[in-house]
């Protein structure tokens, strides 16, 4: 996709450890245009955070081995000079993190932390200008009385307000790319929607591209243009949000969808959990990494245990799925699941009627 702001191609991030090579990210590709939002979805350990830290160049100084390509505005970041990545970091690309309390330094006022973020990339700005900028940003992210609160310390803010501060700090230099790593996970449910709204409003205002990392499909449904579903460091499914919600192609995506409570469904629809736990990234299962947890593996004659499925196009343009099942079989199985058919193993787990009680 020419002209994309961010292009990631065959990205691999491996960590050598005493127990073996941890393949946290193993061949991930995607691209993101200005003003658009990509949701990266997956369970813990699927490699979504490692991917985003890799884009930010935050694996520097660790043992990480990074190969592949990350291009921001056409500039290659893999193998770039650390000094150059530092220049881009916080300026062209910024990041907000999961837990705003531990992510803000407890010893400095929020104003000082924002001023610091601004001045490191704008050394020409005076202290007064930077401070004014910090106050403006705090106001824009919805902090009441920003001119007063700018001198407060992080512990004097509530969780939601802290995340607003983080957002103000990330956006202070007008970044082209904003990466939000589970920005609402540590917050109260009532605050989550506010923060998501804020991010999408600011995105419209600043025109940044956003990568929203989450394990919550509800969050990406609300905000994302595109969705990347990751499993065990690989891409399971990639496509537009509309396509993925209408015609999800990967059993793992089905699992994520079916295990999510839905307000628009009938009450008695059973939640369907994904059996098992995510695999160890040192010993990724051979073949399709999802096969030990897949309910449909038996439908393709053992291929999923030996052969790694490639990411292939579906009938939707740009919608790609890494699954051995045939397109027809996938359509049939998803239709059953979407109609409320409960897989056998789940039926055995809870006797019928258990849900009503």
């Amino acid at each position, binding site marked *: 996709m020419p002209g994309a702001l961010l292009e990631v191609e065959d990205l691999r991030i491996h960590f050598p450890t005493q127990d073996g090579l941890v393949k946290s990210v193993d061949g991930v590709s995607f691209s993101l245009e200005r003003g658009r939002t990509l949701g990266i979805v997956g369970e813990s350990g699927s490699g979504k955070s490692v991917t985003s830290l890799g884009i*930010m160049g*935050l694996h520097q100084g660790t043992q990480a081995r990074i190969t592949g390509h990350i291009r921001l505005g056409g500039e290659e970041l893999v193998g770039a000079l650390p000094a150059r990545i*530092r*220049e*881009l*970091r*916080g*300026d062209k690309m*910024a*990041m907000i*993190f999961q*837990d705003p309390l*531990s*992510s*803000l*330094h*407890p*010893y400095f*006022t929020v104003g000082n932390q924002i001023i*610091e*973020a601004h001045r*490191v*990339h704008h050394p020409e700005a005076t202290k007064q200008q930077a401070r004014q900028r910090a106050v403006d940003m705090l106001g824009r992210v919805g902090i009441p009385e920003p001119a007063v609160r700018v001198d407060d*310390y992080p*512990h004097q803010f509530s969780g939601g307000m802290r995340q607003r501060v*983080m957002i103000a*700090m990330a956006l202070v230099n007008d970044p082209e790319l904003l990466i939000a790593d589970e920005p609402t996970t540590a917050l109260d449910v009532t605050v989550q929607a506010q923060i998501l709204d804020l991010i999408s409003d600011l995105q419209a205002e600043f025109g940044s591209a956003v990568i929203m990392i989450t394990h919550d499909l509800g969050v990406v449904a609300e905000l994302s243009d595109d969705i990347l579903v990751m499993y065990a460091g690989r891409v399971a499914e990639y496509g537009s949000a509309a396509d993925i919600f209408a015609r999800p192609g990967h059993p793992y995506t089905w699992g994520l969808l079916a295990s999510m409570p839905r307000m628009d469904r009938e009450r008695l629809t059973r939640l369907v959990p994904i059996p098992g736990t995510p695999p160890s990234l040192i010993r990724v299962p051979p073949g399709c990494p999802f096969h030990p947890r897949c309910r449909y593996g038996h439908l393709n004659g053992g291929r999923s245990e030996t052969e790694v499925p490639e990411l292939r196009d579906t009938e939707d343009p740009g919608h790609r799925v890494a699954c051995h099942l045939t397109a027809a079989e996938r359509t049939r199985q998803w239709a059953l699941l979407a109609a409320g058919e409960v897989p056998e193993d789940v039926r055995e787990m809870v006797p019928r009627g258990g849900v009503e009680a």
Partner: protein
Amino acid sequence: MITFIIRRLIGTVFLLIVVSMITFAIFFLLPRLAGQNTYQLATQYVGRNPTREAVLQVEQQLGLADPLYLQYGRFLRGIVVGAHYNSGTGSTYCPPPCFGYSFRSQQPVWPQMVSDLPVTLSLAIGASVLWLVGGVSIGVISALRRGSFFDRFSMGVALAGVSLPIFFTGLISLELFSYKWPIFPNVTYVSFTTNPLLWARNLVLPWIVLAFLYAALYARLTRAGMLETMSEDYIRTARAKGLPERTVIVKHGLRSALTPIVTIFGMDLGLLLGGAIITEVTFSLHGLGLFTVMAIQNQDLPEILGVTMLAAFFIVIANLVVDIFYAVLDPRVRY
């Protein structure tokens, strides 16, 4: 912040009063609880082989037979405004802070301590600067280059430093650098005002020996603290802002890692000001430490009492300074 300091000051005054009560109790109450009568108690304030008359006179002079609250009142008053002693021939005035008269020298205790204090002060402050700078920088470098040759080497030396007692390292250093190769011959205390150069030169060995012990400890503490701090989320945030690594380490990392170090440093320094006993004895420096040892050897109770109060005072003040400094460092403590 101001209210915090005022609150801590009031607390400190209160603490000092408690300290004086406890010290008083150790010297005047505990012996009686242990079954001594006032005559036996008085015996200890007369020195060795006293006559019966002398003991009775002291018992009377110190008012040991009076109720305890009167005695404590007198004790406190002596410290604050001084005291008059009737010594048969006439009244002697002991100016404040009065801890009584030494048996040994027949002089008030306080001026003797004051004359020994500069030695301990010079020793403790010089050494503490050395170990703080040395220990912290070695700790930081070790943490940042974890597992490197520097890290393993310096932590090995640090282990030796923590394990080797001062009377060992001190004597070895004296043997080597004062006798065998007389780089620092004739280690005696020369006051700073007399000759600053000689003052420093003669203190180099004690400084290094004392600092070695503490630097080792501080290097290990700093290393552990830095390793922990550098894995904090806010360090990742600082990096994500694009700050230069030096700023990340010094401003964001070291500042947090130093907070516990400051606490321990205050305590250690406070403790040393009350007398660096082993170092002073090893190098025959006439500071408060040596004063204490001699007071104990001579069973000179007024001297022991005085040095106990002074040491406790230093620790209480060190605590106060640490608390205030802590509040300056960490805004969460201020409220």
